[in-house]
């Protein structure tokens, strides 16, 4: 497989079209439904114009929803979609561990041997790590989610 095909894997091209989680239920951090906390975070990459707004809803330690609105390349949109598929039902600490593992994989320049059990479909982004200029695309939604999770946790502390 060429380096290009390793980056644009089936699962990535597929998710870039399916865009799971796209469409924000609400654009703010007010809990709704069974949520007891929520967080929202916007990330923007000024070099390419990719942007994403991610919202996470929590119930106790469980992530109940991850929705987003964004505009960007196939890598950034697929990364948001994969995460939206993974997150609901996960507990917050597991999701943060996954985000950290994902970040390490992206920094590896193709050298990582990612834990497929931990990262699931997200291991497909290993190919992106060889293209240093595209690492930020793959990281955008995940970085935004990490910040949204922290905001949700902080909101709960304040109550």
């Amino acid at each position, binding site marked *: 497989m060429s*380096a290009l095909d390793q980056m*644009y894997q089936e699962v990535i091209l597929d998710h870039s079209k399916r865009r799971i989680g796209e469409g924000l239920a609400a654009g703010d951090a007010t809990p709704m439904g069974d949520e007891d906390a929520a967080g929202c975070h916007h990330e923007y990459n000024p070099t*390419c*114009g*990719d942007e994403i707004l991610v919202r996470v809803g929590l119930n106790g330690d469980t992530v109940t929803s991850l929705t987003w609105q964004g*505009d960007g390349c196939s890598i950034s*949109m697929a990364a948001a979609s994969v995460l939206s598929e993974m997150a609901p039902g996960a507990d917050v600490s597991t999701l943060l561990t996954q985000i950290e593992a994902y970040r390490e994989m992206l920094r590896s320049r193709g050298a990582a041997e990612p834990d497929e059990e931990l990262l699931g479909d997200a291991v497909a982004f290993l190919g992106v790590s060889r293209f240093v200029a595209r690492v930020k695309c793959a990281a955008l939604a995940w970085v935004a989610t990490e910040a949204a999770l922290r905001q949700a946790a902080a909101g709960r502390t304040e109550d």
Partner: protein
Amino acid sequence: MNHGLPVPDGQRGDSHQAPFDDDQARALAQRFPILSRTVMDAPLVYLDSGATSQRPESVIEAEGQFLRNSYAAVHRGAHTLAVEATDAFEEARRTVADFVGADEREIVWTSNATEAINLLTYAFSNATAGSNGSGPGSQRFRLAEGDEVLVTESEHHANLVPWQELCARTGATLRWIPVDDDGLLRLDALGDLLNERTKVLAFTHVSNVTGAVNDVATLVAAAKSAGALTVLDACQSVPHLPVDFHALGVDFAAFSGHKMLGPTGIGALYGRAELLNSLPTFLTGGSMITSVTMERTEYLPAPARFEAGTQRISQAVALAEAVRFLKDLGMDRVAAWEAELGQRLARGVAQIPGVRLVGPRPGQERVGLASVVVEGVHAHDVGQLLDVAGVAVRVGHHCAQPLHRRLGITATTRASAYVYNTTADVDRFLEELSGVRAYFRAED
């Protein structure tokens, strides 16, 4: 041979050689060491000269020769090297001035065009404040509430943001000439926008996104009749077209060396001599003064009054070599060849289903660049596919966010040619571009 533009004879002393063609472009490319490298095992096709151009061996060597033999501080010291360096530095200014139809006193060295426009806008502020050597002649650079600065919706951020900030500092109002759905200036809107309140009209000669060549004569005439100063962003014109600032009649202009086969770190501000000498200074310090006491300072005439501190000496020398290289080719021939490449790009893009050409339609005047939108595929993905095929293009908003927003797009893919590109380079780009939608399954 088939040319997009007529080739005028001997324009400004340019050579009387035959029109440029693929064989000559290929031979020329061999004088650019970087152009023979490969990218991802494919031969490099460099189509990003709009961002920065590559340098011929002679330009690289001219800088090296100067550094090896004659480098020293200029305009100070009396030793032999200082004299040689000063001579080379001022000879470079004459060479560049002659190339753009200016007097040598009208060329101020800057780091790049961005710095040139910032110099100008801060000098306007200083006139408004009455500082930095503001004399009676600086009156016309003062801005206040009720005054207007007119730009265009298609400007590069470098010719927009400094004017925004100048307006914020002085209370003047920024207005802009809109563009149409193709991204071309709507000169029909000029009448209302250009009025007795307009103090400055700043606009680009050639759009770095659409490749359109703006009608400088019409804009300058309109500005003059309204009593406004004109500022031309010549970044995309000086490298690619015969440009004569005196003939164009603009008051100020800016361009960068690295887009015209020269080094980074050198650019220039052109200003009509009488204006430059009454323009307040921007950066102050050494080398730009006549007398300094603990209380006050008198400044040198232009261009020295704008060149504070140690200058970009070897870069200026190398830029002059780049200018000699272009003059030897003849800017009329360069322009004609690039017009042909630009039309080939435009025609080719227009034939690819699902790909939108931004800017002038095929057949309408454009320089050798084309920006495109591939439906259903983000520009970054387009650029990636081209890159692995060895084709280097620019993706993104090209420092022109307002124009992209107006056209309803966030990013484009831009192929920009220079005189070392061939029709085969253009065809390689078109061939790869036509496969993009299938790869990303955007054809459904």
